[in-house]
């Protein structure tokens, strides 16, 4: 009975790229993975984190009322139709982003967002991020443990001894391994669905890839002899990476071995859209597909990078994103900045709308999701790292009530929220980052 609800429409329209994508491949995957699931009616919770730099105009973000009776402020208004699934969380701070070496506030913001740890200067080191901890627990049986998406290209904007990695990603697999962000929809598509014209081709290539990786792994072990220690460490990491890819390929092959459905060829989206809105919607389309097919359950997405000069003319504000955030606390210009905040929330609402419209097990994808959206800054003008603009969407498979404005005690670390979010997906830790306790969600 539940299974029938899970059937995908045979063709899903990928908006933005104007590409029609046939999905029987996905159907078969879904069919196959039901075997792996605990029960067909209880799909895993999807866990997503979306980062926006530069903070927000808080007066237009934070609802006045606490609890269930909260009102949707101007900036959050696009989310009102999902009221039951909205949890606004106020008063949290990322205090350890502040402090000495004050000039590097932007350099630290993205890296601290999900790690709750202070990025080290003149090194590449920050904490493991919450998405990766969660992925380790809830997304190891999926073809991809996690998906790291972004809109902007990695650039050379790095500051004061803080490496580019701190700007370019919010996901850290280990304290020293940042995960690169993918901004090409085409590449994301291939990552999700594989390379090849027909299913047979795709599967054959995967098998061939596996034997190549196998052979390389053996060879690499022997190559390590006589290498300098630092190089050896790098080769060790490379070996781990190879094993990880082998594992992923095995997952896909195993699934397909269990599936009798014929697979057909989805068209990949082509190129990278120029316009932000087209780009971000396409990424959301792909992410929805990834969640829907449980190709992964964990993802991160960066709307922009810190110091981004991007402009969003459709927001009504023609200025650069970073420039607009330095509004000098002049009301008129804070309002102008809020236009960008609201526009970004509109994009989020597009995604939430898709999740809400996608059946999943006994409900919708949104029911089974927990999507964190927000920034590591509040008032970007003075680089404040609290109170942060944060909102969580979805019911996390019944773990999250929604329809609430949760007001934490002033100066509560955002790490408390991250710790509690992990709780909600069954990852129980005593502490995380600079946490001082858990937040009642």
């Amino acid at each position, binding site marked *: 009975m539940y299974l029938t609800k899970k059937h995908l429409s045979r063709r899903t329209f990928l908006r933005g790229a104007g590409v029609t994508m046939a999905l029987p491949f996905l159907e078969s995957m879904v069919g196959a993975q039901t075997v792996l699931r605990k029960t067909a009616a209880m799909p895993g919770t999807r866990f997503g984190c979306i980062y926006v730099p530069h903070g927000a105009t808080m007066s237009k973000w934070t609802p006045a009322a606490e609890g269930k009776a909260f009102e949707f402020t101007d900036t959050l208004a696009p989310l009102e139709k999902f009221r039951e699934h909205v949890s606004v969380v106020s008063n949290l701070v990322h205090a350890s982003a502040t402090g000495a070496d004050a000039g590097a506030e932007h350099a630290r913001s993205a890296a601290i967002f999900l790690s709750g740890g202070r990025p080290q200067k003149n090194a590449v080191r920050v904490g493991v991020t919450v998405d990766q901890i969660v992925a380790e627990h809830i997304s190891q049986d999926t073809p991809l443990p996690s998906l790291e998406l972004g809109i902007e290209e990695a650039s050379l*904007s790095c500051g004061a001894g803080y490496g580019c990695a701190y700007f370019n990603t919010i996901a850290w697999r280990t304290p020293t391994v940042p995960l690169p962000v993918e901004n090409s929809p085409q590449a994301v598509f291939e*990552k999700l669905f594989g390379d090849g014209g027909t299913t047979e081709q795709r599967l054959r290539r995967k098998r061939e890839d596996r034997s190549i990786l196998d052979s390389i792994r053996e060879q690499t072990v022997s190559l390590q002899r006589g290498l300098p220690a630092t*190089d050896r460490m790098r080769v060790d990491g490379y070996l781990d990476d190879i094993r990880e890819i082998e594992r*992923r390929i095995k997952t896909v092959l195993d699934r397909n071995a269990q599936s009798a459905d014929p697979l057909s060829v989805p068209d990949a989206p082509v190129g990278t859209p120029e316009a932000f809105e087209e780009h971000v919607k396409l990424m959301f389309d792909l992410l929805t597909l990834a969640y829907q097919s449980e190709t992964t359950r964990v993802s991160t997405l960066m709307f922009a990078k810190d110091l981004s000069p991007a402009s969003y003319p459709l927001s009504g504000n023609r200025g650069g994103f970073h420039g607009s955030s330095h509004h000098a606390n002049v009301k008129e210009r804070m309002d102008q900045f809020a236009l960008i905040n609201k526009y970004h929330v509109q994009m989020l609402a597009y995604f939430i709308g898709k999740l809400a419209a996608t059946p999943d097990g006994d409900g919708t994808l949104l029911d089974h999701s927990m999507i964190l959206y927000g920034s590591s800054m509040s008032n970007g003008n003075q680089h404040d790292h609290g109170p942060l603009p944060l909102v969580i969407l979805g019911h996390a498979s019944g773990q999250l009530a929604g329809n609430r404005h949760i007001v934490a005690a002033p100066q509560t670390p955002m790490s408390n929220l991250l710790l509690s979010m992990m709780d909600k997906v069954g990852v129980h830790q005593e502490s995380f980052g600079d946490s001082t306790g858990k937040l009642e969600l």
Partner: protein
Amino acid sequence: MRRFVQPPAARESVSARRSLAYRVAACSLPMVLILLGGWSGAPSISGQGQTPPASAPGPSPRAVLDQYCVTCHSDAAKTGGLTLARLDPEHPVDGETWEKVIKKLRAGLMPPSAARRPDRATLEGLRRTIETSIDSAAAAKPDPGATTLHRLNRNEYANVIRDLLALDVETATMLPPDDSTEGFDNIADVLGTSPALIERYVGAAGKISRLAVGNTDLGPLSVTYKVRGDLSQDRHIEGLPVGTRGGIVIRHNFPVDGEYLFKFSLLKVNFGPQYGGAAKDEQLELSVNGERVKLIDLRSVPYYYIRGGGAGGGPAVPLEVRLPIKAGPQTVAVTFVKKSAAYVDDLFQRFDATTADLQTGVQFGYTTVPHLSGVEILGPYNITGPGETPSRARIFVCRPASAQGSGAAGSADRAAADETACARTILSTLARRAFRRPVTAADLAPLLSFYRTGRQGGDFDAGIEMGLRRILTDPNFVFRFERDPANLPAGTPYRLSDVEIASRLSFFLWSSIPDEELLRTAEQGALKDPAVLERQVRRMLGDPRSRALVSNFAGQWLFLRELRNRNPDVLVYPNFDDNLRQAFQRETELLFDSVVHEDRSVFDLMNADYTFVNERLAKHYGIPNVYGSDFRRVAVADQARRGLLGQGSMLTVTSAPNRTSPVTRGAWILENLLGTPPPLPPPNVPAFPEKKTGQGVAEEALSVRDKMVQHRTNQPCLGCHQIMDPIGLALENFDGVGHWRTAESGVRIDASGKLVDGTPVDGAESLRRALLNYPDAFVQTMTEKLLMYGVGRVAHYYDMPAVRAITREAARHDYRFSSLVLAIVKSDPFQMRTASGAAPPAASATNR
């Protein structure tokens, strides 16, 4: 765009200071004579023929420090975290600290203007003393450093595939972007691996092998070439046929002989309003290798962008063409036939940027023409064969008799042996180039094993494809291994092997693998001979592959790669379009290219009395009589325009979208041209007051300068802005897109000021001369960056003696580009490596 690597410098306070008397004196060190070359600011910076300064014993370095530096840099005050109270400049131990001191002195930034300042010669003398002591200590105990294991970055990967397989691939969609540090993306320390990366390497290897071999078991693929929405398409575009306007030229690789579908899309939206409906009789042309293959009449499309529209009774015109195409790289051009050379008689005057308009797109009185927004090439369909491509010619250096279709080759055993022998030849030839060294039996064994797997499942070509796929994922391909000789104690410097140096050379100069000649020379052990090495370097600099220095070194050093991310506000700069953006980039690339390929002095980058423009750029700069879209060398009469400081690329990349940013310009010059990056600003800095626009709001009649003065009344800001601002303000005659102006908001531009060393400046020309008054700052900064790029690791303080030795050597050859490169190639950091000692026994330790 900021990248600051030094700790915060001293925050100097302000006040007027006396001007400097530039007097050469007090230097008795012989090398000083060379280094001081060009100090007079003469256009030709040369280390030769300088008259030795009159030598008079000046105050001792310690006395200079005590008198002029220790007031702030004392143990108690420690301004900027630095104390010089007890350091001995004549016997420097703490090289790291002293190199910071040297950099400040080298660019004339210390002592600050508020403090007492000795004459130039005394300061230079102090710097020489410190440098000489550090350099002689370094010479006695060289430390060439050690580079972490290098991985091919994305650009290198593409070049390597081009040189190995005669195949152009678009790696941007195949491989994830690389991290960069210190402004370069080829620095080994950050070229790590991740599962995503390995996955993409494996995927790329599969794709590239199929393409290169010409696998015909291929589903249709789609590649889209986008035309930027801000490209004006009312004029001719370089590389397209005469008599056309707009469009795009593509070099596309068709994997096999077969049919391909070309789809064209026209620009529909330009920030909202529909676009492209007014002009009549438009035609779209497709040509392949210069021959027109299709002319599409757009008349019957009521709105050009409606594919197959056909409203109003007209026939539907699908904007697509299906054609048989031969395998291999072909030039595809898509453009519009230009209908009239006459001025369009519109009610409104048009901007240079045809898509700048926000409201008038399809209004009465304004002619708009269709713009191409993209070309999609899909295929192959109906494959007829692998075809004969440059890649196949490169790969199949032999053909087994069986594959040549001669059934009379003999027994099946003999045919198989024949095939295996040929496969061995092909794969060892490829592997030698790919691994950049002689191949061993151990290298070859897995390749042949994969060949056999492929051969079993298909034909000979399929076997080669599998072998190639294995090569392209081999760690020997992906990484550049440099192995310490056995039993060398840790910390011992040693010279790299010739074969390792050949790779260093080719990745430095070509961002790619060594070619046959270089590899052979290295295998023969001849690169140890300096004459041979020099011959190879000169040959490589003359080779077209050395354009990688322009795109990768200059592209990153001079922020040319950042240009494409800059979108000047269309309301403030309605004439700015992608044509201009591209022209900016091309101009600077061509200038750098001329320095490389005409072997000019690197000071020409600052000083050149020539530049490269096309009609669009010439118009922007006010250079008369330049017509057409092609670039050509022109003399620059206007002193303000000379060199990098007058180029649109730098001026735009250092501006905000809607105004100039003198602070950014100043900081950029300090960091990238003078090697003294300012620290990042503290938080709580009030924002820059923007110009108010829009109805009903009075514009503030304040120039950027006035606003900056307001802005920096904050005391903590003053120290650094004192240094940055006068530099940036001297360029205020160039607006945010490098257009010359004499007024802003109706107020006359004031480009005057006083640099921190007291030099008065007024405008770009005087700034350029003032900066060149510190030639060492420029040339050593460039050298440091080039060395960093060349070796692929971050330059540390202990590399600075090498940097100075390189510039001393280059000075003997008028700072010609080749002399800089040769001196780098012969330097210890390039030729040598510090042994890290025996690696610990194998452990399964991971960083997980």
